[in-house]
């Protein structure tokens, strides 16, 4: 039988520093073995375990879109206490690491087809939402979805990630981009100023035929959900992605559960309705 604990070797093709403090980097990875590349078919919202032999593993959401064929992208924030993320940030292009996956349930794209989408991101949690947005905006897929609004906020302009992509998307007429920061931080910022939940209340599109997706630091998600409910979004139509400490990623080691659901297997994507039925332990 196949061994789900053995990582597939990948080579780092490109590293992009995403933010001013330089602790968020996007890594483009190419599978060393084409068979692995063919097997690694994923949906938006899924994650993979980034494996560094001799150090450990880290579950990271997949940032590239399933339509990107040559590489898989992960955006990783370095934590001072994180052994894997610290070592990963010191690696260079050409270095070989491992990937296990794809794991998790991902966003139910079929359910989103024919609907308007309100995509809300906060801080560096935009990664899987970027996967989703890139997928939707791809010429093969765009017509399957109706109006797209992306509301993305960070603490300051230096903390916004994927700047070049956001600028490109802003130029398009088939997606509405709203960027906001909590504080200008003395920089030349032309976008909105205000926390995401407040900007949402002011600028949100209607909830009719609309699905809301919220990913961000837990405190942001907690304060974004009430305005969404006020706008008329029902709990079954609000999607979010959770994080938990993980080890195996396949629902065996018993670590990442919230109630009877394993975040690695039954999640990480959950609707707000599902969250309401789960114990408040995250």
């Amino acid at each position: 039988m196949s061994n789900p604990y053995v990582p597939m070797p990948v080579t780092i093709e490109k590293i992009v520093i995403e933010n001013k403090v330089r602790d968020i980097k996007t890594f483009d990875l190419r599978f060393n073995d084409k068979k692995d590349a063919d097997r690694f078919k994923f949906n938006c919202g899924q994650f993979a375990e980034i494996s560094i032999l001799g150090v450990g593993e880290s579950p990271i959401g997949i940032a590239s879109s399933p339509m990107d064929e040559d590489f898989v992208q992960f955006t990783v924030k370095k934590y001072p206490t994180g052994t894997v993320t610290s070592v990963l940030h010191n690696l260079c292009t050409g270095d070989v690491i491992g990937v296990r996956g794809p794991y998790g349930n991902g966003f139910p794209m079929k359910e989103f087809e024919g609907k308007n989408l309100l995509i809300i991101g906060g801080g560096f949690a935009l990664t899987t939402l970027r996967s989703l947005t890139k997928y939707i905006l791809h010429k093969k897929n765009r017509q399957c979805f109706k109006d797209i609004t992306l509301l993305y906020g960070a603490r300051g302009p230096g903390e916004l990630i994927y700047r070049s992509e956001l600028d490109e998307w802003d130029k398009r007429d088939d997606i509405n981009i709203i960027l906001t920061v909590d504080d200008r931080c003395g920089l030349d910022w032309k976008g909105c100023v205000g926390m995401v939940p407040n900007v949402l209340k002011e600028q949100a599109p209607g909830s009719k035929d609309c699905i809301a997706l919220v990913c961000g630091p837990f405190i942001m998600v907690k304060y974004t959900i009430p305005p969404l409910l006020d706008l008329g979004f029902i709990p079954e139509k609000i999607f979010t992605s959770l994080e938990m400490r993980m080890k195996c990623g396949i629902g065996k080691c018993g670590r990442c559960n919230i109630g009877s659901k394993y975040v690695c297997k039954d999640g990480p994507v959950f609707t707000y309705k599902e969250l309401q039925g789960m114990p408040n332990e995250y």
Partner: protein
Amino acid sequence: MIEKIKETVKKLFKENKIDIFIGYNEGTLPLRSTPCFITKPEDIEKLVWNSYCSNNLAVYLPRFFVPQQGAKDAKLPRIGILAKGCDGRSIVGLIKEHQIPRENIYIIGIHCGGMIDTKKIKKVDIVAAEEKNDKVLVEDEDKRKVELKKEELLADMCKTCQYTAPVVYDILLGKEKQKTSKEDREAFIKEFEKKPLEERWKYFQEQISKCIRCNACRQACPNCYCKECFADQTKPKWIGPTNDISDVMFYQIGRIFHQAGRCVDCGACVRACPMDVDLRVFTYKLIKDVKEFFEYEAGVSLEENPPLATFKQDDKQEFITEP
């Protein structure tokens, strides 16, 4: 004796001197008592005091004083605790290491006659036991009744106890018990020291190879209050969590040496260890050495500075300057 304890605790609650009292309740198995936390006066009736009250209750104290996030000005609880000699020595250690504030602890000291080591009764399933003065009547599953001498069942560290009551207390109950000589307490270590190096190393390896890294010794020890134990650290990663002999050896040696100058020989680690690892022959050796080299005994004085945590101007420095 138990009535005196209950009376004292009732008075403490009535005079609003404590918020919680830590004592013992009847256990669910024969020859066992279990720690209990009393916040309501009506639960005082359930308190017990017997030769099964072996748990070191001091281990619960630090968790009441962990700084709570977002509650900087939260009022610290006032804890009453029933302390035998060994528990009292642990409490002294915790106060000296600033883990618990003396003014928030009310120590009901009690003279202890020694605790039974249930591991001394094996192979027989005891369904009931009753303590009667210096005897223990046990009934096995075939309804056979046997009278055992309590002193034969006492834990090794209790047999040669030097401090049957805490040295620091707010009130002391009970009658002073006869103490054994210090030589008796050290006898087992002196015997072991006589053995050749290879034999001692072999014994050490044999004993720790039983370890399954459950961490019970560490969790039961009142001195092991570190938020992140060296054994769990990932940066740097000192050891792995497996039961490979190299991991186990580093863990045991590391943990025991971290007790040097602090261990009070309460036996909580020995009692907690489910695999019967003979920890005491190693922990006591450190206690003996500290006594010999620094003339210091942990847990008997609130004023004395612990030698391994104190720096004096005239400390030798050659080991740094001329390694």
